[in-house]
């Protein structure tokens, strides 16, 4: 099942840090197996597209360490929610072949959501730019689902 408009709207809400809208849309989402997989795919794809926008295969280890630290330092809950080494590995894994299987699923979800939100807002993506970003992530998500 491909990504639906409802799923895109839910991800848009968290990327725009619209907390109430996000929770409302998340609660209303279809919870069937295929729909949940599509939702996960969109969360993963949004993270990948965000990382590809901000970094590249030429990005140094130091820049990733620096950025992860900057984001984790922003909020009270973030230092615990976002393990620094796991966050760095997940960002780097967008460009290398390193497996991230050993990272717990919940931690992965947190890293994917928080860093996608941070990057989208740091890059100032709004309006059409945000829609283009979401369209790109949706294409990637649909391809991951297959």
């Amino acid at each position: 099942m491909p990504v639906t408009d409802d799923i895109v709207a839910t991800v848009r809400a968290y990327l725009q840090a619209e907390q109430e809208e996000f929770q409302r849309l998340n609660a209303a989402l279809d919870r069937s197996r295929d729909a949940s997989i599509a939702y996960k795919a969109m969360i993963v794809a949004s993270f990948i597209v965000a990382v590809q926008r901000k970094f590249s295969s030429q990005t140094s280890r130091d820049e990733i360490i620096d950025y992860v630290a900057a984001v984790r330092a922003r909020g009270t809950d973030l230092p615990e929610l976002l393990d620094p080494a796991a966050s760095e590995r997940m960002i780097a894994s967008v460009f290398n072949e390193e497996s991230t299987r050993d990272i717990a699923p919940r931690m992965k979800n947190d890293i994917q959501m928080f860093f996608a939100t941070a990057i989208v807002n740091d890059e100032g993506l709004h309006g059409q730019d945000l829609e283009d970003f979401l369209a790109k992530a949706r294409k990637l998500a649909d391809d991951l689902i297959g």
Partner: protein
Amino acid sequence: MRQSDAFAGPGVGVRHETNRDLGPADPRPYLTAKDTPAPRTKPDASDGPTHRAADVEGPSGEELLEKDKLHKSRIDELREELIENFDEVHDWAESIGDKFTQALDRPEPTGHYLQCRPRVVEAHPANPYGVDAGTGAAAMLATGLFVGEIARRTYRKAAELKERSNARYG
């Protein structure tokens, strides 16, 4: 597909040095007045027509996967992970609450502060410092770490000498 490694070797990447032209060096060069994102390593939309939002409509998902160097092994792993724990994604999203708003960069980072213990010197009945027999207070462990640091410093000095020599002789 080009092999890529986001973790480039030593000598590449950001160097954190204090700006000595501004007087006494800040011993804490890593502190900034506000959180700033890491330097961009890719052109942004303001750099001209090479990176336009309109390009998004062109490539398919498959082309994006290849173009942006998402390795096949990673694609396979991502696909497998999608079907693991998919049933938890909604509950996880609910549990996040409003925490994701903390990821936003704010002009004055609030941070939070630890409840530090008072700096008393008097002995306490219980060890206040969190040291026990296995905590790295062991002599063997200290020896091993000293050896590691000596090796690192030796390497650093050699690297600095080489850099100075390269700068002098090109």
